[in-house]
């Protein structure tokens, strides 16, 4: 592989990491509160509100049912409003975050729902308010699942970021299509696939280690 190609590869890795990392963090920051809201407003939750619950559920389902490649194009005006441009790595972070947030919200919801109701009752019996229940019970007890779900979301984002090449975001997927596929540079294709495998394995490994360390349930 020529030094030019190597430079391209390194730059693409960086772009993929930026897109995945930034949109991952945003979907964590937005998805976890959404997941909490879904669990809290559900019947028998700590702040039951069927109306809010069904509206929230419907919005999340709507975003989740749009294919990412469509979302990418449909959100161009929004992206332009937020980032100032609709082209490039930073521009891709907007649709990636908006696509991954509802996905992560559902994953977080599942973990939060599994928290033993007896623990919530124990903290209520101590005189804890809703915030105490969230801070001391729901989030810490669901943390292993929240972290495991975040790992899954990051891996999904790596895949989705390949499509962001369509709006000139760069990244590994874009490199593989433009050089590996369209210009028959087999060595680039192989290199990209290997890098992706290493990246995904690395993220999963770190995630699994973290979950094991956080989980004191058994």
């Amino acid at each position, binding site marked *: 592989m020529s030094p030019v190609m190597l430079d391209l590869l390194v730059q693409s890795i960086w772009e993929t990491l930026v897109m995945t990392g930034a949109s991952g963090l945003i979907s964590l920051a937005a998805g976890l509160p959404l997941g909490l809201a879904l669990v809290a407003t559900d019947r028998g939750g700590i702040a039951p509100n069927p109306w809010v619950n069904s509206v929230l559920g419907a919005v999340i389902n709507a975003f989740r049912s749009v294919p990412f490649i469509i979302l990418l194009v449909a959100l161009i005006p929004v992206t332009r409003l937020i980032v100032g441009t609709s082209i490039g790595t930073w521009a891709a972070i907007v649709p990636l975050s908006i696509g991954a947030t509802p996905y992560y919200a559902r994953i977080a919801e599942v973990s939060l729902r599994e928290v*033993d109701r*007896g*623990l919530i*009752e*124990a*903290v*209520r*019996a*101590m*005189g*804890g*308010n809703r915030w*105490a229940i969230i801070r*001391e*019970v729901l989030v*810490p*007890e669901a*943390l292993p699942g929240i972290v495991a779900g975040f790992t899954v979301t990051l891996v999904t984002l790596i895949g989705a970021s390949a499509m962001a090449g369509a709006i000139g975001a760069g990244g590994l997927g874009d490199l593989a299509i433009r050089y590996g596929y369209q210009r028959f540079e087999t060595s680039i294709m192989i290199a990209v696939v290997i890098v992706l495998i290493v990246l995904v394995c690395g993220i999963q490994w770190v995630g699994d280690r973290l979950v094991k360390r*956080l989980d*004191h*349930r*058994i």
Partner: protein
Amino acid sequence: MNSHVSVPGQTGAIIADTPLADAVVRLENVKRHFGDTPALDGVSLTVRKGEILGIIGRSGAGKSTLIRCLNGLERPESGAIFVEGRQIIGLSERELQPFRRRIGMIFQHFNLLSAKTVEENVALPLKIEGRPRAERLNRARELLDLVGLSDKAKAYPSSLSGGQKQRVGIARALAARPALLLSDEATSALDPETTRSILALLKDINRKLGLTILLITHEMEVVRSIGDRVAVIDAGKIVEEGPVWSVFADPQTDITKSLLAGIRPQLPAHIADALSPEPGGEAVLGVDLAGAAAQGTLLAELPRPFRLLHGGVDHVQDQAVARLYLAVPAVPAGAVQTFIQFLEARSARVEVLGYVTGHA
């Protein structure tokens, strides 16, 4: 409701008119329905300062609903609940929070937070109260010392045995220095030996700290070993209430008798099967004795020969309580009656269970 008010050494008036100041919690005609079925159907009850009150009933009798009404986790439809003299029905969730801090609670399945260490679990009520970290940890250490788990402060609950978990639960319930400890079937998930040690700890805390304890259970043995008073609940109503030894010596209702069946001598099955309601042969008598009568030389003084079929003397709250099954020849006529009158004159309670012929 059957009240055991005529207790030797205590006058009825003291029990009937408990001064309000002495009541940690008082319920008046509390009602709660789930759909059409009443879970609590007009419950009135007073928990007095410093006592251990046991509430016993079968599952579904309303015990859990009752205990959860006391700290506002369950909201009754009508009635009044006073915690340390103040009515809590009608308070908002936020207004209830300070009252809940005055009431500690332990649970059947311990409900310890798995993500927190033992000392963090114990300190949690104080964290919720907003106390500084140093004070929380000091208090946690103090309480872990009290329950004998100082060496487990940094461990996670998952590494503890059931008995140890419940000790942590007790320490946590005491952290905020509550006026009342609620125990919701706290020993039901434990083996008999661990149950005894947890009950001994509760009794110890009751004596040392003067802490009022209300425990609900379906096991009479729990009430027998540490209760001062007992209230029997059935279908949402308190059907019998009184000092534990008195209820044991003289149960008034069928439900109480059946709850007692496991720990009081029962007529052996082969004799019970042979019983006939027709007079003849020998009369089989069930005799309940309590206090001095149970410890005296009563059996030696009985006016006619008899066979002791089964029975025993138990000690509840340091009172002797006896349940005996006697067979008395039914001839000559009036012999059984003489026998019963003699026993009743010595404050025994006698019931004729039936008659047996031959060698039952």
